[in-house]
């Protein structure tokens, strides 16, 4: 029989194809616009010479100037060495810890995981100050106690104003926790049989980890590493405090300084950011190439979940991790809470150093309630928008065959590559420079979009890597049962990647409620959140109530984390139900 004699389904197939293609083109256009526009403004700015507000001319002056800045070289070297060192350490320990939490019978692993989450969400400036109080040179409490205990010990044994100090504070305030945060859900999505068969082949737990688990998870680990590298290179808050005493400057503090100069040198900041982007791009492409080639499905149709028995290591590891969580969260928290009840943070010499007046001042602010509501709306709104957008983009870039979906994936990396303080400017230019956004300019929606964009990289990449872990047959079985793409996405795919989606939702929430830079650039009166109150106090030199606001933000985030934990236990392949 010839094809001509057969009724053909061509029209409907084509019709559907076109709707899909249309939506895809729309998605890529929107994402492309949102991420490229801010970058484009940077390029334009980089060619505008002259101080802000004065007459500017176009030319290469900023570029020449940036290259002639001879602090660049040492700053660059510091940036690289600091970033590499702490990423390296964080990765080694992070992978190990994440594995122990995700795949073994470690007692209390669920709570330890939450401990790492909290460590990640601790307000970074107050925590850094807490570490300064504890280990800031000779005056650091730890060093003083040590001297009291062992009078023969002089000087500062623990000194955060040092190369290693910067690394340590970074590690405990974010770099290590974020590894655990991002890797645990990915590690959970692995068929236990893969580990078990390695052990049956005679490999011990460590070998199994290094030769089976890590290689299988490598695309995710590489992604987390790259993300971490970029973040590390952007970090400036901690260096800003700990760097100057030790005479350590990094690239990002340079950018910060030219940005905060009066008048600010945005042109030079842009040049420096663009240089940064060009350095990062090859790595992103390499990561993309590697991820495409080496992603492995680890959740298949015969999935089994069994926890590895740590045996005798169980309790030592438990105590070790407890200690770490304690050092990361409880120790600075205790310092902060005590500090907030002191008349002057860290001044124990006063006749009566304790007071509740900072708390009363902070809690009795009239705008507290509104700020709280704003923070919550901003956090929840961003998390909701982010979760949907990240899932859809990740799905499209992984599970469809559209032309150029690799581009989509690449686009999502762009916002992360630009330092946060610089990109909020780009966002501003985008929102005021594009007529479509005018109606929402000044509303909370701009803030939501900005926060979501700031998290788009981690969000899309994490969900994407999770999607890659799902064997195609899980979806195929749904299609074969008659489920449409959308239904399958909703009933099979999403529940399976939900733990990651929740993680990125939580991450988005946390950055939203703690955001300062973006708020300053885009927030307006009625929708200013709690984090701006923190700024208010800091700018009036009132560190104690600022800490209190930071603690309030932390409380919100912790509540959100607990809610997230509650829900993520309900989804995914279900290891949590295992005990």
């Amino acid at each position, binding site marked *: *029989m010839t*094809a001509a004699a*057969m*009724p*053909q*389904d*061509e029209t409907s*197939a*084509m019709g559907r194809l076109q709707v899909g293609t249309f939506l895809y083109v729309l998605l890529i256009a929107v994402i492309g616009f949102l991420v490229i526009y801010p970058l484009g403004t940077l390029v334009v700015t980089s060619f505008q010479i002259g101080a802000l507000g004065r007459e500017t001319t176009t030319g290469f002056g900023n570029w020449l100037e940036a290259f002639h800045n001879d602090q660049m070289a040492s700053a660059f070297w510091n940036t690289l060495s600091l970033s590499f060192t702490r990423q390296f350490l964080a990765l080694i320990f992070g992978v190990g810890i994440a594995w122990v939490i995700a795949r073994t019978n470690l007692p209390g692993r669920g709570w330890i995981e939450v401990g790492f989450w909290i460590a990640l969400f601790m307000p970074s400036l107050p925590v850094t100050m807490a570490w300064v109080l504890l280990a800031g040179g000779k005056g650091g409490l730890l060093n003083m106690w040590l001297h009291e205990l062992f009078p023969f010990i002089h000087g500062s044994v623990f000194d955060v104003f040092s190369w290693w100090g910067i690394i340590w504070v970074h590690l405990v305030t974010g770099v290590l926790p974020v590894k655990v945060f991002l890797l645990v859900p990915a590690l959970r999505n692995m068929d236990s049989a893969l580990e078990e068969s390695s052990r049956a082949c005679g490999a011990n737990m460590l070998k199994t980890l290094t030769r089976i688990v890590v290689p299988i998870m490598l695309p995710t680990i590489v992604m987390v590493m790259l993300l971490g590298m970029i973040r590390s290179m952007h970090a400036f808050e901690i260096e800003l405090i700990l760097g100057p005493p030790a005479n350590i400057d990094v690239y990002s503090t340079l950018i910060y300084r030219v940005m905060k100069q009066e008048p600010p040198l945005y042109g030079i900041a842009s040049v420096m950011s663009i240089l940064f982007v060009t350095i990062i791009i090859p790595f992103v492409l390499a990561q993309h190439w590697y991820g495409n080639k080496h992603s492995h499905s680890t*959740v*298949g*149709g*015969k*999935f*089994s*979940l069994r926890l590895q028995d740590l045996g005798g290591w169980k309790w030592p590891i438990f105590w070790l991790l407890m200690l770490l969580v304690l050092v990361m969260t409880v120790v600075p928290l205790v310092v902060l809470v005590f500090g907030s009840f002191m008349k002057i943070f860290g001044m124990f010499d006063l006749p009566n150093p304790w007071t509740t007046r900072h708390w009363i001042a902070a809690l009795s602010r009239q705008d507290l309630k509104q700020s709280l509501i704003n923070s919550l709306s901003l956090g929840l709104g961003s998390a909701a928008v982010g979760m949907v957008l990240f899932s859809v983009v990740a799905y499209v870039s992984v599970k469809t065959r559209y032309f150029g979906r690799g581009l989509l994936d690449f686009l999502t990396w762009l916002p992360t590559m630009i330092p946060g303080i610089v990109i909020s400017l780009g966002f501003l230019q985008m929102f005021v420079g594009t007529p479509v956004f005018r109606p929402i300019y000044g509303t909370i929606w701009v803030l939501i979009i900005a926060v979501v964009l700031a998290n788009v990289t981690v969000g899309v990449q994490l969900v994407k890597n999770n999607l890659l872990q799902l*064997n195609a*047959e*899980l979806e*195929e*079985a*749904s*299609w*074969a*049962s*008659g*489920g*449409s*793409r959308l*239904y*399958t996405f909703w*009933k*099979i795919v999403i*529940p*399976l990647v939900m733990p990651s989606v929740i993680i990125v939702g939580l991450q988005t929430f946390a950055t939203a409620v703690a955001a300062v830079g973006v708020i300053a650039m885009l927030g307006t009166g009625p929708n200013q959140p709690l984090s701006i109150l923190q700024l208010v106090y800091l700018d009036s030199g009132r560190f104690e109530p600022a800490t209190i606001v930071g603690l309030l933000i932390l409380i919100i985030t912790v509540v959100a984390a607990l809610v997230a934990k509650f829900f993520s236990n309900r*989804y*995914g*392949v*279900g290891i949590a*139900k295992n005990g």
Partner: protein
Amino acid sequence: MASERTESEGTEDCILRMRGVQKRYGSVLALESTDLDLCRGEILTLLGPSGCGKTTTLRLAIGLERATSGKIWFKDRLVDAPESKVYVSPEKRDMGMVFQSYAIWPHMDVFGNVAYPLKIRHRKADEIRQEVEKVLDLVGLAGFANRPGTKLSGGQMQRVAVARGLVFGPDLLLMDEPFSNLDAKLRDQMRSELKLLQRRLGISVLFVTHDQSEALALSDRIAVMRAGHIEQVGAPKELYYHPQTAAARDFLGRTLLFQGKLASRHGESAMVELAEGALCRVAGADHTRGASAGSLCVAGIRPEHVKIKPWLDQAERTQDALAAQILTLLFIGDRYEASIRLPSGAIANVFLPCDDDWQEGQAVSLSFPPERLQLWPATGAAE
């Protein structure tokens, strides 16, 4: 039953039709140009060695893979034709499929997995519960409804997969080795349930199995595949007794092959001088395309047709019988599998009934009913 339809061009009671379908995974040619017709209400089994393209055929049928070239029709509707850019996605084809790898959804319990196709079809909650219970009962998983899909034994997972395929009664059910991890009892039971269901609902089944007796017992027709193409399609008996190619012959059941020389021809039958030393009359099918007397050939016979008797007496020896010796006797339940040594030293495997008292080392005589012997060209590899 429907064996004559093998080569027929799609009649209206043909539910699935493939023409010249080819599938390539990168550099691997998994399926060569393949034609296949599946009739309404028929159980067609794909049988073939591991890696021959059975799963690929199923995946093409339901649309999980797109053909590299060729055309596929389902219910007279073109569903896949790369040349004319036609492709209907799996969910629109309304077939059911049981995956070789089960594809149990790890985030659902057994009930959720099985109820899924019904939920998609917006059945009422009550009805869903009933249907699922019924089918779980059928596969012997009553009481497992609330067990998470990941906390099951291998066979239990497989049964969930089967239940999910059966539950919504699709017009065409594709089953990829659905019983491979089940024990004989359960397998028998499920096989007959499947047959009942298929009869009752009139559904068609495209079945994949590596188990010959399953294929023979269950199928209306069998397609023997090898290395990416279909060797022969036909009713079980036809295939078994009249294989067209050596591959089909060797794959389905065993055949004892004896090298020999065509001594003479007498109408439908021929005399063959076996290298083993006997002169046999061959009256079965001739696959040599009329090789002339004197040419080398192979005589083949199914082991169960060989008459084996204890070698009682030298006198009993006839020209068409071979003397042989039992080397090993393997008890396989209802009979023995015996290795016997032929005069030339070659070893052949045959079955012996358990009733008689066989001994290892015992001398036996083999004789071959002429109408059971078939003539094959000499290139056929000796067993």
